[in-house]
């Protein structure tokens, strides 16, 4: 019976109507519409909470129409509603009406990754003094191993979605015309304390962080490039509070 109930909630299917105790078809419709509305509106609202920047970019009406199309083909697969939407960016990529914004799917994927990271495990990080102390204790800092939170992610995006995301988050208003959207970007997604951070980084920094995440010694992690400034990059990691450990030995694989 719940197959029919579900079909009535997500579409025009009327097989379920015989189950509803009511005097007329109109009364059945009105009563069932309460549930239809609960399901559809609550799921659109959920997507709106999960993808606020995507919504701001396309506007509320467009977003809600797109979200409704999505939920009808991809209802949640888990009762944990904050995890809903893992296929939304794939859906947007195929969504005809969004084709004029080729970066929209990547932006939605970025939002989803950041939210998932926020909900992921916390890893304690070192403060400025602890980092300074670790470096002061050794003669040759280049032999040290620096660890970042293992949940950190590096992304190479063909569009400037990191700048776009930050433009929205900084003042609540998208300044699309101020972002050179067709320029590629390297992004670091990492979590310190409770909330995921997004940083737009250089190609050299991306290479360096990738080596650190693979447990390489500092001197092995350095990119072979004149454009890389180790001091400035370490200062950023300290400021962002993303160094979880400094040691003479590589961390053992967990």
């Amino acid at each position: 019976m719940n197959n029919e109930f579900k079909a009535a909630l997500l579409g025009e299917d009327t097989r379920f109507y015989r189950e509803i105790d009511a005097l007329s078809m109109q009364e059945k419709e009105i009563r069932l519409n309460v549930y239809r509305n609960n399901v559809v509106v609550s799921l659109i609202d959920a997507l709106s909470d999960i993808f606020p920047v995507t919504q701001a970019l396309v506007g509320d009406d467009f977003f809600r129409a797109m979200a409704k199309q999505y939920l009808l083909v991809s209802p949640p697969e888990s009762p944990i509603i904050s995890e809903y939407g893992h296929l939304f960016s794939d859906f947007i990529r195929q969504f005809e009406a969004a084709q004029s914004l080729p970066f929209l799917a990547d932006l939605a994927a970025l939002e989803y990754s950041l939210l998932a990271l926020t909900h992921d495990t916390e890893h304690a990080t070192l403060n400025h003094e602890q980092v300074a102390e670790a470096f002061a204790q050794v003669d040759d800092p280049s032999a040290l191993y620096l660890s970042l939170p293992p949940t950190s992610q590096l992304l190479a995006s063909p569009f400037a979605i990191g700048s776009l995301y930050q433009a929205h988050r900084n003042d609540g208003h998208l300044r699309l015309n101020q972002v050179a959207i067709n320029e590629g970007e390297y992004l670091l997604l990492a979590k310190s304390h409770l909330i995921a951070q997004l940083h737009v980084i250089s190609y050299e920094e991306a290479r360096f962080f990738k080596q650190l995440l693979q447990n390489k010694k500092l001197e092995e992690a350095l990119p072979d490039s004149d454009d890389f400034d180790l001091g400035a990059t370490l200062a950023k990691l300290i400021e962002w509070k993303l160094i979880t450990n400094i040691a003479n030995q590589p961390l053992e694989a967990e």
Partner: protein
Amino acid sequence: MSRFTPKVEDAMLASSTFSSLSGISLKPAYYQGILADLPEVGFFEIHAENYLSNGGPARHYLHKIREHYPLTVHGVGLSIGGETPLNIEHLKRVAKLVNELQPAVFSEHLAWSTHHSQFLNDLLPVPYDGPTLDRVCRHIEQVQECLQRQILLENPSTYFEFTRSDMSETDFIREIAKRTGCGLLLDVNNVEVSCFNNRTNPYDYLNDFPLNAVGQMHLAGHTIDSNTTLPLKIDSHDEPVSQDVWALYQYTCLQLNMMNQACPTLIERDGNLPPLTELLAEARYADTIRQTALRESRYEQRI
């Protein structure tokens, strides 16, 4: 009879404010204010499904708040009324949370939300017939077994009745409590909403309800549906508790007191969130009604 009938938490609950003072829903917007002011309130209730992540702000603040207040955990996703088997992976995650938090109460709904692997994010109704009764009881026993504790089952808010139902909602719920040993969460707003929508009398409903199994009550606000043809009340949790619900609550407290039963009560709010002080005021109002009912029932028992 289930082996979960004796409430193992009774000794602990007697000394906690869960039984004596009303509680309110815990929402992220209130985390900071609660920790800054530590207001006097009996307990906080969370939705299990909002706290099943590995980390993040919600879990962080919950653990801080738990140092000061009793908690109750309200499941909204187990789909106990579902036709398909329970989602075991989800049940295990809920059990882990319950074990970690040791709440005063774990409650769930007489409703379904998952069919096969699809979750519809609403509390959908079930027919009141023999096959559904058997299935719901099996699911409750499975949940109680996994959680290793008695759960409370909440009466639903409904917008239609099933043609195939052959027993009343109160008889159906009474039979569930009898067979599984589960307790009941009496949502007084749901009584008002369902009875209004199904054109029955809420006081008759309360008189038929197995009050002896009630372990907690919910109070919430409702709204009126926008259609103009058929007036319906919507269980929206986004308004203050209405006058008709306060009156039903007062009536229920009186009945419970005459049975020497406590009335732990939650002010439930999920949307259109007011300043925390407004919910605290509603909780205090509920306390006043409980205390007045207690005096009145003692007076009645004397004469």
